[in-house]
């Protein structure tokens, strides 16, 4: 049993569950059913992408919402490649286990020398997965009892949530610069572009990664 990974992931699971409750409740007030929330969490298992998709969908097109979520998950491509050696077995098993790689389990499984401990990575991932799916479903059921989203100020909760998520994704000065540039691009393009498009335009900010 990958018990060490599970134990290490407990504090992260509590934080993930808090995000999950908030996601479920907000998704419900925006018209998503509990079944939709369950299917989305079970397949996607990525808080920031799920929040992005539903908030862009609120006033933008479905295509913009899908693209925003894909771009947010773009980081999982290099992260999946880096941790690939810890995920073994036939292709379908690797495909399934790869879904357990998220920011927190990746950090717990990382040995610090570029290699990964499979038991830690997957144990942590399994606990976080359970915490995310259960908490988003519970949040969505609770969300049914919330009143008018505008009166409750829930539209003011979204930027706060994205700010909290951004907080966890900035690891150095370059990350902070990409964030500042991304926000600037989104605001400047808003009066001209259809809703949702400024988010996609903001991805150009990651090009500062080319600057040394």
């Amino acid at each position, binding site marked *: 049993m990958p018990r060490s990974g599970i134990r290490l992931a407990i504090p992260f699971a509590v*934080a993930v569950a*808090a995000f999950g409750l*908030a996601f479920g409740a907000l998704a419900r007030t925006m018209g998503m059913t509990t079944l*939709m929330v369950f299917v*989305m969490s079970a*397949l*996607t*298992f*990525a808080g920031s992408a*799920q929040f*992005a998709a539903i*908030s862009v*969908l609120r006033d933008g097109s479905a295509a913009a919402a*899908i693209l925003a*979520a*894909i771009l947010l*998950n*773009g980081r999982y*491509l*290099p*992260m*999946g*490649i880096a941790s*690939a050696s810890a*995920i073994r077995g036939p*292709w379908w098993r*690797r*495909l399934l286990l*790869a*879904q357990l*790689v998220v920011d927190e389990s990746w950090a717990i499984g990382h040995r610090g020398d570029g290699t990964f401990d499979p038991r830690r990575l997957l144990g942590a991932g399994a606990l976080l997965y359970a915490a995310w799916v259960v908490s988003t479903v519970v949040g969505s059921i609770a969300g049914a009892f919330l009143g008018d989203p505008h009166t*409750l*100020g*829930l*539209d*003011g*909760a*979204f*930027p*706060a949530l*994205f*700010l*909290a998520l*951004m907080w966890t994704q900035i690891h150095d000065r*370059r*990350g902070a610069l*990409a964030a500042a540039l*991304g*926000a600037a691009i989104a*605001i400047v393009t*808003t*009066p001209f572009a259809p*809703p949702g498009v*400024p*988010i996609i*335009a903001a*991805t150009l*900010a*990651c090009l500062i*990664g080319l600057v040394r």
Partner: protein
Amino acid sequence: MSTTWLVVLAVGAATVLIKGAGPVLLGGRALPGRLTTLLRLLAPAVLAALVATQVVVSGSRLVVDERLLALAVAFVALLLRAPVLVVVILAALVTALARLVTSG
């Protein structure tokens, strides 16, 4: 099929493929370092754009309202290491109260 279901399924399928691509296809090989840097900068850039548009955008217009006050409060709460749920509830509370005051 509703638009919301389309988004739910498309985002889910795309994420399964993105996460699975490395372990299924590229096991052991690495992406060029530059590309990894770019892909990892996507998250802060897109999240910051989401913060910006959620806080000062209404449709296609830039507006300053209660949401900016709520974001400032959330920022301070995060600096003080408040838990996420507290930050979110605080932001909603500030928005709702400010709205109550300005409309009344």
